[in-house]
């Protein structure tokens, strides 16, 4: 056992896992996180807490993670390389583990241009792959990047995650980037939101044929469309996102009041397909500012009750 987290135990047991997502508030209001925890507890196995996503300043992912864990929800603390150098990153890894965090997602981070402080200086002292390797070295060798060692039994026991985007170009390279993350030491990956199922199947086939799915747990990222407008926005304006016309047409086919329900129907169909794809170990449900719908989605997908090990 690398970390002893619930997520690690379930994946090792071969359960089809479901992870959720929680964005901390743009304030010091802990009750926002506690409220979101209510809709996630018992419905998902672990919850990503985002780290100033889209470069907008929010309550820190470490603080959000701890609040979730106080509410009995296991956190998956996200960490981006945009805002910290290697000194701060390693320090936060040690601190987070000391405070009970067991899962960590290693990300490069969105460019600050997208956020509320576009004039900020970015860091990117490490990139996501170097971050994975750093955490793995800290955990498995008890060493910092500098070579400084820590006593046996005091290493940060973390289950190491990363994100992958099967849809960004060059498409042919993407599976090699996954291989690179595996070589660096990642334990599980969560994908960018999937809408183009055929392309995702092709990606998973490549990964499977290369033997990669035996070395890493792949959680397929899914996000329900709340409306036709959202689907159109995702199709046109979100870089690295592949939304086929088929999704747009399904939402167009129902009246406006029924679009969010149809969005959830699309998602439920996706989950059934994903369950059958070799190498898919679970789903990562990103119900962005729609956490209150998570219980009904998980129930309708037939994924309740959540297993325990």
């Amino acid at each position: 056992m690398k970390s002893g987290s619930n997520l690690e135990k379930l994946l090792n047991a071969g359960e089809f896992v479901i992870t959720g997502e929680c964005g901390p508030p743009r304030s010091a209001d802990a009750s926002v996180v506690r409220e979101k925890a209510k809709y996630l507890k018992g419905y998902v196995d672990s919850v990503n807490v985002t780290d100033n996503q889209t470069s907008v300043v929010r309550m820190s992912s470490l603080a959000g993670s701890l609040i979730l864990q106080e509410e009995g929800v296991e956190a998956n603390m996200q960490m981006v390389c945009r805002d910290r150098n290697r000194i701060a990153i390693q320090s936060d890894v040690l601190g987070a583990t000391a405070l009970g965090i067991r899962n960590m997602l290693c990300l490069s981070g969105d460019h600050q241009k997208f956020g509320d402080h576009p004039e900020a200086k970015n860091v990117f002292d490490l990139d996501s792959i170097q971050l994975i390797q750093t955490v793995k070295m800290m955990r498995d060798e008890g060493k910092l990047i500098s070579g400084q060692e820590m006593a046996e039994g005091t290493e940060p026991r973390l289950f190491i995650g990363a994100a992958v985007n099967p849809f960004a170009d060059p498409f042919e390279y993407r599976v090699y980037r996954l291989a690179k993350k595996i070589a660096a030491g990642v334990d599980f990956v969560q994908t960018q939101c999937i809408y183009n199922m055929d392309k995702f199947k092709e990606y998973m086939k490549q990964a499977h044929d290369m033997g990669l799915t035996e070395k890493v747990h792949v959680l397929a990222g899914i996000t329900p469309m709340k409306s036709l407008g959202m689907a159109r926005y995702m199709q046109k304006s979100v870089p690295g996102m592949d939304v086929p016309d088929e999704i747009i047409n399904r939402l167009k086919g129902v009246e406006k009041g029924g679009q969010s329900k149809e969005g959830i129907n699309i998602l439920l169909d996706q989950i059934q397909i994903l369950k059958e794809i070799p190498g898919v170990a679970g789903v990562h449900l990103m119900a962005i500012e729609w956490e209150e719908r998570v219980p009904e989605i998980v129930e309708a997908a037939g994924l309740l009750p959540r297993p325990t090990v």
Partner: protein
Amino acid sequence: MIRSITKQKSEEEIDRLLDGLNRIFIVGCGTCVTLTQTGGEAQVESMKEALSNKGKLITGQTVVPVACDNLTGEILEDFGSQIEQADAMLIMTCAYGVQTMANQLKKMVVPALDTLFIGKETSLGQFNETCTQCGTCVLGETGGICPVTSCHKGLVNGPCGGTNNGKCEIDDAKDCAWTMIYNRLKDLGRLEAMRKYQQPRNHQGEPSPGKFNVPVMENGL
């Protein structure tokens, strides 16, 4: 040829920097800023007009051949009293020129330009930053295209998830550095270079501030 690329500061900022300084000597440069039309004869002339209209007294003006050259101080000696009676020199060169003059003349200097980067003219009238002089060159493993400079995140282990039809997610007019590297390595039959893990960069490679001494030969040359 590489050039120091500059941009004129806003009128408000120049006004603020010159507040209370009424007698001004203006200097341009015949090299980079002439080429980029930010500090050549024409720009110095229009700056003189603009400042005169605001009631400043222009004690003199000149465009030196190469502002960053150590000879600049000597050249400016010819303008002795014009510079002496000025409250400040408004300098329309890159920051290398501004600092050269500040050191040589011991005179209050005010830059009229912001220095953006050292750029290479990649096509007529277009300058691009292709090297940030990081001190730890990776070009041997990236097909000769620099991701430290050309990737907005300076990533050295391949493209992030934001490549968008070969363009960068933060600027759809800019090619994704890693897509260019991928295509170059593919043409060269060296794609395996992108599968290799690159260690965290050594930022000590870039001394800050940079300093270099040409080795002195035994014969004194």
